């Protein structure tokens, strides 16, 4: 399973074939060249030192070749690292790009189901771990494996018997690797999960520190973090134990045992074959054999950690994206028609049942009903965030799924009950990705939603930087700002979801005026808490537990005994009648 993750990462490398080929060729050359040095040593010792006979010309020749080989091998390996690092930077940029683009295309349901902290963690910490994996671990591992193979070949060429002793140890090394992996991988997965939890906790609580301070809950939250970190430590400590048992110390143990085995086989060798040069060269290869194995072992722990992170990144990348819809463009005000629509977020808990509702172009329709009656869900369906389980939604006789999703969302604007303000200037927050409007138009729209005095109070006007937690904005202003956004988008359908809920009467009146002004030009769907604001609607739809109870004009509905009357009775008896 972890090989498949690594293979998948390597596949990204295939997108950059030129660099990949360059890096591999350099690697082959550098490793091969490096193998020559011990041979030269052997020739030197056997031909000159052991027989105590020195010939200056040949000596200088060997020395020059030796130095040339060393410099050449290291230069090649430097260029190899450079091109590999370039490759890894490109691959990781691609992966970062892919995860970001994928994230933007994930269905809204994904964000409702996963905490933001967790998603952020996958795209930041986990991708960073993958970067480390690709740049530092995979590259070195490939090089180490190359080196080990080259060393074994050279040893075999040098002396078959000694080489076989070394080769006999390789299965033991592999067994240790496999054992370590077997125990460690599940542990690493747990550690990653636990740190994702810690991250979610930190992401949430750091945004609300003031509240913790007011409720004097910091000590408990600190303790909670401490407990979570303790759990993480306990898991990591188990992993440290595994590493200490099976990695580096085990390698030292095996290295010494291997020497013992070599000595034994030396003893068994006919001594006339024993040349000092051979021993020199052999031990030189042995050092070159252990170095990559030390590296391989050293990186095992990191490798598994990074593989666990890579798996989480790939989980994100493999999550289904939402469809981009059909090819139809919505560029006028459509007739919206819900036909026998049923929907449930969780199977078995229907939110809407067999809903029939028509919104004519330019109509002002109000949705009312108690909490949980499915009003907001209608907006979610119209925005294309979710698809109906049965029945269908049509815009001008075409199924909603036949429209291009992006165009649909630009045409149908939802002014949310919890609006989000991006960390950007006021201008950017209004325009989003629009380019053409000039500042005059922005001022005009802001004046329309009565934010002009607010804008005037800002230190840098439209360029003032705001964000979701900015003290420069109240909840009411955020909603007004979203309203301005909707106006700028030139949407043909505007949905207000409880938008008037927390506005002061002045802003509320402003919105009423804007609604009156837009009425007839765009379709308006108002999900209302205060019935007073929607008395003048063309149609009021009363929902209860996902069922459409009544629809009609206010004047007609008040005459009938029914859900609307009950709602009026409970909603609009002024508070003073009850309070003692």
């Amino acid at each position, binding site marked *: 399973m972890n090989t498949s993750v690594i293979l998948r990462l390597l596949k990204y490398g295939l997108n950059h074939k030129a660099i990949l080929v360059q890096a591999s060729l350099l690697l082959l050359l550098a490793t091969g060249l490096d193998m020559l040095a011990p041979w030269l040593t052997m020739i030197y010792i056997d031909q000159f030192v052991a027989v105590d006979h020195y010939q200056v010309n040949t000596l200088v020749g060997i020395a020059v070749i030796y130095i040339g080989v060393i410099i050449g091998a290291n230069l090649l390996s430097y260029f190899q690292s450079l091109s590999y690092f370039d490759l890894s930077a490109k691959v990781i940029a691609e992966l970062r790009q892919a995860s970001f683009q994928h994230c933007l295309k994930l269905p809204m349901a994904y964000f409702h189901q996963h905490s933001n902290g967790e998603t952020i963690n996958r795209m930041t910490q986990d991708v960073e771990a993958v970067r480390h994996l690709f740049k530092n671990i995979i590259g070195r591992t490939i090089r180490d494996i190359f080196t080990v193979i080259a060393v074994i070949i050279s040893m075999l060429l040098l002396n078959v018997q000694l080489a076989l002793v070394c080769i006999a140890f390789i299965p033991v090394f592999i067994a240790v690797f496999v054992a370590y992996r077997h125990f460690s991988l599940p542990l690493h997965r747990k550690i990653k999960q636990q740190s994702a939890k810690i991250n979610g906790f*930190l992401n949430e609580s750091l945004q609300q520190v003031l509240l913790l301070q007011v409720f004097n809950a910091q000590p408990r939250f600190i303790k909670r973090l401490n407990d979570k970190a303790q759990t993480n430590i306990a898991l990591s400590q188990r992993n440290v134990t595994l590493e200490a048992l099976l990695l580096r110390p085990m390698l030292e143990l095996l290295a010494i045992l291997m020497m013992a085995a070599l000595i034994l086989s030396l003893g068994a060798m006919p001594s006339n074959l024993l040349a000092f040069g051979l021993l020199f060269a052999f031990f030189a290869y042995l050092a070159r054999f252990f170095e990559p194995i030390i590296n391989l072992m050293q990186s095992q722990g990191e490798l598994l950690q990074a593989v666990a992170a890579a798996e989480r990144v790939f989980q994100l990348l493999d999550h289904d994206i939402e469809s981009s819809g059909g090819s139809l463009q919505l560029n006028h005000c459509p007739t919206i028609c819900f036909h026998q629509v049923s929907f449930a977020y969780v199977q078995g808990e229907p939110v809407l049942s067999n809903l029939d509702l028509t919104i004519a172009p330019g109509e002002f329709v109000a949705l009312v009903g108690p909490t949980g009656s499915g009003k907001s869900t209608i907006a979610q369906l119209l925005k294309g965030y979710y698809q109906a389980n049965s029945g269908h939604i049509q815009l001008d006789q075409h199924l909603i799924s036949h429209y291009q999703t992006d165009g649909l969302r630009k045409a149908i604007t939802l002014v949310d009950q919890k609006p989000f303000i991006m960390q950007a200037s006021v201008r950017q927050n209004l325009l989003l990705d629009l380019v053409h409007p000039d500042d005059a138009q922005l001022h005009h729209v802001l004046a329309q939603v009565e934010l002009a005095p607010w804008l005037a109070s800002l230190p840098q006007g439209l360029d003032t930087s705001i964000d979701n937690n900015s003290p420069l904005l109240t909840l009411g202003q955020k909603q007004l700002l979203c309203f301005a956004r909707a106006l700028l988008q030139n949407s043909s359908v505007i949905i207000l979801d409880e938008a008037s809920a927390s506005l002061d009467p002045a802003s509320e009146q402003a919105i009423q005026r804007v609604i009156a002004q837009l009425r007839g030009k765009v379709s308006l769907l108002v999900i209302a808490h205060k019935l007073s604001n929607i008395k003048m609607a063309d149609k009021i739809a009363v929902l209860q537990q996902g069922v459409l109870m009544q629809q009609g004009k206010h004047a007609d509905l008040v005459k009938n005994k029914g859900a609307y009357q009950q709602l009026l009775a409970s909603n609009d008896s002024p508070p003073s009648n009850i309070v003692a």
Partner: protein
Amino acid sequence: MEFINQIGWFIKLHQWRYISIFMAIVAASVCSLIPPLLIASLVDQLAKSQSVNLVDLWPTLAQLVALAISTYLLRFFWRYYLFGSALELERSLMVQLYSHCCRMPGPFFQRHSSAKLLNHLNSDVNAVSQGVGNGVIFFVDAFVMSSLVLVVLATQISWLLTLVVLLPLPILALSIKRYGQQMQSRLEQSQYQLGLFYQQIQQTVNGISVIKGHACQGASQQQFDHQLAQLTQANIDQARVEAKYEPTTAMVAAGSFFLTLSVGSVLVAQQQITLGELLAFNLYLGYLIWPMNAFGFLFSTLTMASVSMKRIDQVLNDDQLGYASQSPTVPTQQTTLIKLDVEYFSHHNHQVANEDSFAEPDQAALLFKDVHFSAQRGQIQAIVGPVACGKSSLLRLLLGSSMIESVQRSLHPDANIAYVPQDCALFTGTIRENIALGAPDASFEQIKNAASLACLSKDIDTFELGYDTQVGEHGSQLSGGQKQRLAIARALLTQADILLLDDSLSALDNATCSQLLFNLKCWMAGTKTVILASSRFDLLNHADKILLLRPEHLPLYLTHSELLTRDNWYQQQYQHASATEGGIKP
């Protein structure tokens, strides 16, 4: 080496542990140095006798196996404890940093966004922990192991050869020092870019509803592409330096080998050393290759750890509490619970609250001035005004979370404050946990009581899991009205004397609102006070006193009936509200 200073306190704290780890490492290194000597003597023996007797080999073999096992045990021991302490440091730094954040007032979080803090709490803390974990190993391998090898070489084989080996080392030291300097600035640059990049991602994910809702992926994509290009460049620049470490050490090692072989063969020719000794010498040189690499790793690990520690320290040292640390004065009147006198408050004060001394008043940014507010026991008071008149800011002044020089705050010594913020600020967890946030020892009965006071119990009863229902991140599983009532229940459970509500009734229907106001009055029992910032004018006839804030007007602080007669704007708003709400009564 700066890192040693930064982290010295931790090592001092666990000094015995580190001393024993250090001794174990030295012992283990000594053990692993013996085999080449054994081999050298064996080879010389072989060379002399020309015939091999297997029995002669056994003592050497037994010694080797004994060495192998003791090395293994020693290494296991020190690794276990060394990485254990590194983990411990990671935890303690994380908790220390988090505790610091928990202590700091609002403006701190404007200087350090939560994305930035999250990055410190993750990657930086991890890099520091690497510094005391792998860092120590690299240190030992680089210095202890290599000096032991050199001592053995000098005493057992030849001091002259040892000196020759050392010749190329200054080159290594110098180049690594140079790389280290290059590395430092590039590392800082790439960490900085990474921070910006993370902020971009956090912004995007947190704002996904806007981005998807308006199908404006293009704009965020553009910004992202820009950030990504810069980050990738910073990564590449850093890698350019990293790539130099290994070839340099390998080259120096090969240089040493070349020199020893040349000088060594001269010594063999002069019969000062044997060939077996020369072989052993070369074996030891093999032992030096890894320490030399470790030398490079040591510097890059310590540099990274040091850069990260600096970033953490910057946050930890940012501990200006300013005026927030001043305790409020005690009101002169016994029945007064809280009193606030504001000379002047501007938009600018938001940014610098608690810190800057009183700056020159900037008329354009003025939010309100000359406010004199005081609440007695048993009163409901309201703060009203148009959007952006400063209601929330005034509540935060009452709360004491932002303080500036021009504000004088008095609080009854026995009074506690509870607060319901505009955005409710709920936490992942169950409903029960959220209600009990301010009173962890509360019994289930008390929790249920608070929920029913806040008119929430009926809602909870409809949930399958009741009080154990998960509310989701920031309470995302609840409706706006449910969140507000949950936040109110949480505040009521704390048994505070002063309850500050920041527009907390906005998403409630009138029936619930009436019931809630009634319950609040019962809860107050004549001894507590409720201060409500609201834009619902229909509720104002319940308030004992109302503070009316309007931009470019002096604040009015009167009763409802006085305001009705004295202020036209107020009258209009109230009539509008009561007309639209009460007018359609059947």
